[in-house]
């Protein structure tokens, strides 16, 4: 064969399959492809390059879609103050998290998330705890640097709030999730070290650490469809 090398073919074929799985929303196949990439640095690099290119493509599409909309909204030669343009573009009742999904979470964001989880039946709030969570819904206080349980307990007490252990755990887990997923800023990588290091210490038993202690918390055992990568890799798609 005088064409592409077997290595080139293997990478290109995987890239084609990745794109096809992406377009089809075939998550099992995507997981299987990433599983293959775990032992193949070239494949990892190829998928990461693909992710970068797709991001760039999406950004370019958003730019080109936004430009004509802005022009038609303002009209040629018409001065429109910026705040009106922004107000027109923003959804009328967008939640704060949608307005700035990358802002560091505040007490009110965590309280809102805990309330959502309670509303979804994932957490049971006593009337006292529900009132305590409600009292935080308009608090702009920043979260503590460390999100270990004692630190979170001290912090809620400093806000004049006392809640039960299950609610405190839910509060802590919501804070961890929000801190982590909102922390992608231009300044650099997310500060995972703080809260990862602040997680509960490893239980003495190796078996115990595989399952969180409190099934009430969002970090507790979750319903799985049997495809979690615990010990077995996901089946290769055919």
């Amino acid at each position, binding site marked *: 064969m005088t064409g592409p090398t077997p290595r080139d073919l293997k990478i290109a074929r995987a890239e084609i399959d990745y794109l096809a799985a992406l377009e089809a929303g075939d998550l099992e*196949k995507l997981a299987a492809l990433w599983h293959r990439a*775990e032992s193949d640095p070239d494949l990892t690099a190829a998928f990461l390059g693909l992710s970068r290119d797709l991001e760039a493509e999406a950004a370019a599409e958003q730019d080109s879609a936004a430009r004509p909309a802005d022009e038609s909204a303002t009209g040629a030669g018409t001065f429109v103050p910026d705040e009106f343009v922004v107000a027109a573009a923003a959804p009328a009742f967008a939640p704060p998290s949608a307005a700035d999904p990358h802002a560091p979470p505040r007490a009110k964001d965590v309280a809102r998330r805990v309330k959502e989880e309670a509303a979804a039946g994932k957490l049971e709030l006593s009337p006292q705890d529900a009132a305590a969570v409600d009292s935080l819904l308009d608090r702009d206080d920043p979260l503590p640097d460390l999100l270990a349980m004692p630190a979170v307990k001290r912090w809620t007490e400093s806000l004049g709030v006392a809640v039960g252990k299950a609610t405190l755990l839910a509060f802590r887990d919501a804070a961890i999730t929000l801190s982590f997923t909102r922390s992608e800023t231009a300044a650099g990588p997310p500060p*995972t070290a703080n809260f990862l290091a602040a997680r509960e210490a*490893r239980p003495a038993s190796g078996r115990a650490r595989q399952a969180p202690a409190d099934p009430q918390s969002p970090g507790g055992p979750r319903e799985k469809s049997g495809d979690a990568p615990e010990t077995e890799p996901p089946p290769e798609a055919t």
Partner: protein
Amino acid sequence: MPPDPSEDEYQARRAALDAALSRDWEKVRAAVTNVVARKIHRGSPEFHDVVHETLGTTLEDLLKQAAKYDPDRDVVPWAARFAMLSLSEVLRKRGRRQQVVAAADLGEAWESAVVSYHSLEEERRREAAEVIQAALAQMKPDQRRIIELMDLQGLNYDELHAAIGGPRGALRMRVLRARSAFGAILKRMCREEDSQ
């Protein structure tokens, strides 16, 4: 089953996982956002919710699996695999999995055609050329040209760019989309042939 790691080893793996995630989490996020964007419009508030929920769930899973983290390996594919399975669960809970269909193996069709075209066996090469020409005839002109130059004539990316122009940064995606389209046509031709 491998033995449970010692406390010291566990802590070392955990620290390595922490460092690797701090460094590379954005790459996992990029992979997740690209997939979510295929299901939910990027401008929708639900888009951010799904990305956040998926990454949060992924993080929880990764922490539970810290004892199995291999510090000698890249964390990104390992975390990305967890992320895809987490996303699957998040979408299922939101009732969005019904639209999922199994992706066709377009890469196999593309690879088979290209390998046959460059085969040393005259007959195999001739047969492949006939199939390839029939497939190319069904392609858009710009994508057809990419396949001809890149996969049949063997140009590299720089040479291809010199030949077809356009933004250099978008070239890789253009090639990939052309190859996907080519694979899809070959796949369809195979199905039609089988059904006859």
